[in-house]
């Protein structure tokens, strides 16, 4: 296997006075879809925000494509080739669908063939092309958020809980989109609570608990081993109740 596209070594992070990440060790293999699992509050979203430079890193290092990006600004990290779809999707509601996508294309005019591909994946985007994105439904907003991250080729996609609050039919559409991306060998790091969705898509998996990665391996291994699932994810469910 070639060297991982993204490596986190002993990364710590704080939000205000709270110590959220306690030395994360994480590798995202190149060209694969990695799922980050774990219960609420385990630090999954913070991990993504930390990679993106939105949370300061007092200790540890983040390496992307062989470059140390720990102290880079968010915009520089983005320009280096990481796209991020946050949990709240971050759609510009007052901008039209078109303007949202135009803005995402940082390298000039949009590529029409790529746009057609996105329209095939997410037909509502074509239908509501010149409407304010704020008027879209939750599922359509999620489609736009992911399309925005895909409108230009990126080396790594960080996606935070794309299926949250969506109807099963739309989740299916999203899964199809992610499969297309996998086929194009885009590296993806996906935070997801929906285990059936992540089992369908994931190749590698990392499980977080209390700000640390407590397990990493292949998805196939975790999918077959129900004891391991019970240990890692049942523990999360238990903590909820």
């Amino acid at each position, binding site marked *: 296997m070639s060297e991982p596209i993204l490596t986190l070594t002993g990364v710590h992070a704080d939000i205000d006075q709270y110590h959220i990440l306690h030395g994360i060790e994480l590798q995202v293999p190149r060209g694969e879809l990695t799922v980050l699992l774990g219960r609420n509050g385990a630090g999954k979203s913070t991990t993504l925000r930390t990679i993106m430079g939105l949370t300061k890193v007092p200790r540890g290092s983040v390496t992307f494509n062989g470059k140390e990006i720990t102290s880079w600004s*968010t915009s520089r990290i983005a320009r280096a080739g990481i796209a991020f779809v946050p949990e709240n999707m*971050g759609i*510009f509601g007052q901008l039209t669908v078109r303007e949202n996508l*135009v803005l995402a294309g*940082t390298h000039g005019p949009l590529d029409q063939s790529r746009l057609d591909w996105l329209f095939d994946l997410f037909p509502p985007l074509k239908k509501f092309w010149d409407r304010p994105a704020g008027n879209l439904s939750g599922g359509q907003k999620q489609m736009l958020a992911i399309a925005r991250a895909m409108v230009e080729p990126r080396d790594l996609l960080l996606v935070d809980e794309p299926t949250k609050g969506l109807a099963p039919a739309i989740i299916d559409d999203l899964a199809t989109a992610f499969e297309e991306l996998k086929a194009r060998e885009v590296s993806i790091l996906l935070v997801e609570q929906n285990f059936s969705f992540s089992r369908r898509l994931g190749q590698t998996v990392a499980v977080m608990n209390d700000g640390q990665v407590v397990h990493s391996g292949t998805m196939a291994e975790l999918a077959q081993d129900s004891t391991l699932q019970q240990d890692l994810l049942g523990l999360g469910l238990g903590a909820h109740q």
Partner: protein
Amino acid sequence: MSQANPSVGPWALWRDRLLKLQSDKPHLVLLGLMLFLAFLAMDPATWFVLTISGMAMGTMLFLMASGMTLTFGLMSVLNLAHGAFISLGAFVGAVMLTGALGVYTVSPSLGWNLLAILPALFAAMAVAGVVGWLFEVIVIKPVYGDHLKQILVTVGGSIVLIQLIEVTWGANEIPVPRPGALRGAFVIEDWVPLIGGLVMEKFRMVALLLGLTVYGLMLWVIDRTRLGILVRAGVENREMVEIQGYRIGLLFLGVFIAGSALAGLGGAMWGMYREIITAHMGEELMISVIVIIILGGLGSIRGCFYGALLVGLINLYIGYIEPRLAAVATVGLMVGVLMWRPQGLIPVIKV
């Protein structure tokens, strides 16, 4: 949506339409209402003159207010030193008109006048823009995200700037010569049957034209260009703009410079309009500017434009009907609008 329902009479239909209009286009409803009420309160010729003058005043106020609304919208920066840039523009403009270009200013030919006016306005914008740049880097940047410090630091910065103006050009009022061709008024006799004869000050027509042109240009930039999309996106959600790979700090600096330059332009125009300037004129205008940006909805260019028109018009209408009320009219308008729509006329939705 009003639907053609046979059981509903035409009145209900109109009522529905009106209700929809007042929630969809509150700025137009308010503007129409004000024009209509003023029309009832005075004779048509006076109304026409006051309306045009009020709009001219409004567009000049818009020039001054637009920069402040955008800096607030984009970075939530409260720049209370904005008035100092208005004064600065007025002084630079006046110095150009009286100094090196004085010969062209007094000439009665419009062509020669333009040779004085255009460089004067350009210089006002350039100087205000450059000082704005320094001000952003030195004063504003260290206090991003902290409104209390912004208020303290920009009020302090404002005092410093105004004192610097006084040190440079003196503490007294300075008369500003209005260019020869723009003095006086157009006199139109028996123009329209209803309105009759008119006397329109020339300078106000020019100010109105310039204001509308700048507004048109700004709308074009905001609506049609990539830079405009970026500014609108930044007003809505800064962090997401960074996540897309744009340096929001640079964008904000650019907007701040442009806003300061526009304040300078507005100040230079205002100086020619009033024909007298003081270092404190910007501070005095800040009350109107703040009312305008609150009226319009913080961060909204369209709202700012309509807010400025409303403030300009109500000033002149009330000043004509009952001069003693003119001072409270502006603030009264703001209170009324905020009771009706607390978010302002054309609010910007932030994430």
